[in-house]
């Protein structure tokens, strides 16, 4: 395949991620996958890739890539200030772009005034070409498999798409929001409510929390006044846990589990983030404020339906846009 980027500066944490491997949890394998599944879907949709095709997940910026062969690429998720260095051309998030052999792409990072989001997704035609392990191309960092040699990207790594570049896919823009409102995450009550005092859910939902710097792809650690367990309620015989679970360790400071979470946990789960808010959750960065809002299961289901309908509408608009786009199709590169 021909679309090739080379990693010049790998940044904080840059990995290949797709829709993850939820079915391997019974082997102790974290689900992995994009922390913001919607950002992944947007980047892929712009290139007509399957929604869960592998893309490069970039954390907070500080990344530089050399274009070895002219290609179309697409960006989803957070706006991390991507520019083509030689031209000073900004590469908008939620859009596809043509970049030329020899150019350098730099992700400057979160810019003042654009405070939303921590993770950007870079898609190439057909998805990033890496082998699938246990049904997924995602990088399992803890066990060192999947993605590129089971590790974060480093200097000199080559990134290739699974399809030849089709320049006619350049210049498309996602006709909907790119990164949603990150400040409120809706939750349902968790399975271990009885382990906490009666007002623990109130305490979780009635105040602002701040994302701690030691948060990572395993979980978002929050700072704020500790939540109280009942007497000896702080630990239990380990149970299976899942993405979005809000665990409360004995010290009372909550951890919201993300894509690389361990499959079992011994801390009581006070609440669980709803599926509709999984993507905004995955866009929280250290220092960001976050609030939690309690909904019931019916509310969570309604939120999911709303999210899906919105997504379908935007995908429809993108497809209609394509007809307009065909009009402007220009031959080859």
């Amino acid at each position, binding site marked *: 395949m021909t679309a090739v980027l080379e990693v010049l500066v790998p940044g904080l944490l840059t990995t290949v991620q797709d829709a993850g491997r*939820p*079915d*391997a*949890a*019974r*082997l*102790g*394998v*974290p689900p992995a996958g994009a922390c913001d599944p919607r950002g992944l879907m947007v980047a892929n949709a712009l290139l007509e890739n399957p929604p869960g095709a592998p893309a490069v997940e970039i954390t907070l910026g500080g990344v530089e890539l050399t274009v070895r062969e002219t290609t179309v690429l697409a960006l989803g998720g957070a706006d991390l200030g991507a520019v083509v260095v030689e031209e000073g051309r900004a590469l908008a998030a939620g859009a596809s772009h043509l970049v030329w052999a020899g150019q350098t792409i730099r992700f400057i990072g979160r810019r003042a005034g654009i405070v939303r989001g921590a993770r950007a997704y870079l898609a190439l035609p057909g998805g990033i070409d890496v082998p699938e*392990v*246990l049904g997924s191309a995602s990088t*399992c960092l*803890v*066990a*060192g*498999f*999947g993605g590129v040699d089971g590790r974060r990207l480093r200097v000199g790594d080559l990134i290739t798409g699974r399809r030849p570049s089709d320049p006619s896919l350049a210049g498309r823009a996602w006709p909907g929001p790119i990164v949603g409102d990150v400040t409120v995450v809706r939750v*349902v009550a*968790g*399975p271990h409510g009885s382990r906490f005092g009666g007002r623990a859910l109130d305490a979780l939902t009635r105040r602002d929390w701040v994302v701690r710097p030691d948060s990572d792809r395993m979980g978002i650690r929050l700072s704020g006044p500790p939540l109280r367990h009942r007497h000896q309620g702080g630990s*239990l*015989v*380990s*149970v*299976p*846990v*899942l993405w*979005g*679970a809000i665990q409360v360790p004995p010290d009372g400071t909550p951890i919201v589990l993300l894509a690389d979470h*361990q*499959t*079992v946990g011994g801390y009581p*789960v006070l609440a*669980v*983030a*709803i*599926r509709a808010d999984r993507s905004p959750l995955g866009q929280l960065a250290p220092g960001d404020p976050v609030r939690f809002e309690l909904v019931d*299961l019916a509310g*969570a*289901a309604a939120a*999911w339906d709303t999210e899906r309908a919105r997504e379908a509408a935007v995908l429809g608009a993108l497809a209609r846009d394509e007809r307009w786009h065909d009009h402007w199709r220009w031959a080859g590169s």
Partner: protein
Amino acid sequence: VTTPSRIVPFGEAAFLVVLGERISAPLNRRTHALDSAVRERFHRDDGWGEPVPAYASLLVPFDPDRVPAADARARLAALVTAVEQSGIPPERPGPLVEIPVRYGGADGPDLDEVAERLGLSPREVVALHAGRTYRVFMLGFVPGFAYLGSVAPRLVLPRRATPRPRVPVGSIGIAGRQTAVYPFATAGGWHLLGRTDVTLWDPASDRPARLAPGDRVRFVPTGGPS
């Protein structure tokens, strides 16, 4: 084991079946009997996910767009009742896996300290650790990490105050009533008694995790103090 199981929602797209709040072989057998029943009857094509078993609980994911939560709960409840009414499955001995271990020295850097803290000689610690057949209760922590139990009461220690940032692959540790082999190099807080060359995790193989719940494990000393 007499307490009936509870089914609680875990988010919108999974139920957690809690069979008990203890680590016990009978509860664990029942957990895995339920796991097998769920996998047999609830299929992906019908909107169910792969269940995840732990010590005495089972996570059963489903797609609420395809299986309404109320239906999922009713079908799961019927299955739980059926498994409970069939009693605790008899202990059908699982496959026996023998793991050769080099105890002590650089391979088991905590052996001497463990012995000292427990008022035993290193040789006695090895004899106690290798003198039992363990049961695989569950996989977790990291891929292929099998929680084995239960270690002799005289070997029970809380985990290390400060975890090691990197435990070498194949290290054998103890913590509480549990023992395990680290399937690859990773951070870990257990007391390290020895090391094996047996491969426990190979994601490229048909059976990535060498140990499965219900398997029996024996550690066979091949060196060190014995």
